[in-house]
């Protein structure tokens, strides 16, 4: 599949969805581009102004804990984040990331080693992360997850398969 390349944004453990996308916006902002303008604002006010397409978030344990709000994944995706590498993910956030077509990779060694600002490449089909700290492998994503990613997210993926069923 595709390769993702960008610079690392490094954060710690338990980055919760209230700091990724504050609750006070959840019923007032519905446009994904507008969501992107508030990404991580309660954790890192520098992020939205400086993030580049393809940049990679690297974090510790339990990334995305807290509320189930999908906006946490959407705002990062539309801010240009190409992938998230963490020690571990909170489960609902993990699902939301997949469903937004945003690769969420649990690679503890890489998450520990990578440093802020480093240029990193992620090859999803090869299962490899290339960086100044070395190369890290990760197991391939389950086939159905790759299918969702390849279609750009759950909604386009299911729309496609429903249309195919209808045509058959």
């Amino acid at each position, binding site marked *: 599949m595709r390769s993702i390349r960008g610079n690392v944004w490094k954060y710690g*453990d*338990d980055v*919760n969805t*209230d*700091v990724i996308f*504050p*609750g*006070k916006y*959840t*019923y*007032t902002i*519905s446009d994904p581009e507008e969501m992107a303008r508030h990404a991580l604002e*309660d*954790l890192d006010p520098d992020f939205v102004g400086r993030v580049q397409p393809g940049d990679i978030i690297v974090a510790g*344990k*339990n990334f995305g*804990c*807290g*509320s*189930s*709000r*999908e906006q946490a*994944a959407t705002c990062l995706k539309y801010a240009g984040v190409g992938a998230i590498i963490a020690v*571990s993910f*909170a*489960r*609902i956030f993990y*699902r*939301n990331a997949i*469903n*937004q077509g945003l690769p969420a990779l649990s690679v503890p060694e890489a998450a520990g080693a990578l440093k802020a600002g480093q240029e990193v490449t992620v090859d999803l089909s090869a299962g490899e992360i290339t960086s100044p700290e070395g190369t890290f492998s990760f197991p391939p994503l*389950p086939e*159905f997850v790759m299918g969702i990613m390849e279609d750009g*997210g*759950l*909604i*386009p993926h*299911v*729309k496609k398969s*429903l*249309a195919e069923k209808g045509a058959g």
Partner: protein
Amino acid sequence: MPIPQTISQKILARNAGLEDVSPGQIVTVSPDVILTHDNSAAISGKFAQLGVDRVWDAERPVIVLDHVVPAANEKTAGNHQTIRDFVDRQGIRHFYDVGVGICHQVVPERGHVLPGSLVLGSDSHTTTYGAFGAFAAGIGRSEAAVVWATGTIWLMVPETMVIEIDGTFSAGVYPKDLILYIIGQLGADGALYKAVEFRGPAIAELDISGRMTLCNMSVEMGAKAGIVAADERTMEWLRDRVEGPLEPVISDPDAPVERTIRYDIGELEPQVACPHTVDNVAPVGEVAGTRIHQALVGTCTNGRLDDLRQAAQVLRGSSVAPGVRLLVLPASAQIYRQAMAEGILETLAAAGAIILNPGCGPCLGAHEGVLAPGEVCISTANRNFKGRMGCKEASVYLASPATVAASAAAGTIADPRDRLAH
């Protein structure tokens, strides 16, 4: 020879049409109930993108307006209007409009959960219904739209972690203190992706409300689901609310579990989650004396009749301290009326509490009690992340209704046992 299974495995297997399932296995399930709330408008937008006209089954969605109710501005009012239109067009049977209550209270109250049910909801605290012996988990908005369209979604079978509780609560100590203590011990990812099953004599003694508090907050230690096996108490609570036979699903005694952790609550003291994480837990004595500006009794975690009664017991004959706003939000219209009939609301109002409508209120910082920079709130809610109540320069402590009430009277964080002793 049937393989020994835990409650979660049995429920997921049965729903997926399989004889048994193993942790790590991906299954396709068709939830008995798909819960959505104020986010139903956004979900209907995603649903519209799927190219499907009708919801797969108008009986199985449950939609409850609770997060910003009554509407706080034109945007949220328009949101509610969109949802009502969708409900009408689709003929959604189970729609609960503004004022009925918080979704996690309304869903069981109105008979939508049975032991052995599989309930998914576009809200992390969907885990609450595990208190009834159901498998209940949170999912995202896109997935909820897919369930509306197709009736199915994928789940990975979690491992089960058993938490066994012994002993009895001392005076002034409650289930909220227990779950805060556990989260403090295990950490925000201590039960990451596990189905937590609460067992033991102390759990058997817990009433439904206490079980709901435990299961509600299990997500705050990363759990996929929190479950208490259904027993006679469960059946009694459900008897007048649901139709049909009630059959508990019980874990096989020899079903493998990831691990078992035991706690004895005999010495447990009131606990407080300190800013700005739920697992930053300390005994109340360590933070007693901290000045507060606002106190909240309510939310899906602790907004039930016994919670309000707990607060009223502490506040009877006292007043809310000057400079403190005490907000009380009964979790449902039914509870509001019961509390009114029992004189609980009178006791709280006489003490100076501000009684608000059933709903999520200030818990997520949308309205009805947002904080200002530098303010401190002590709350019976389930989250205290930075910015949670609408202001990132404010601080939120989490505690039991008794501790919150005692703090409201003192004007500072206070141990409820001192007040209850008199």
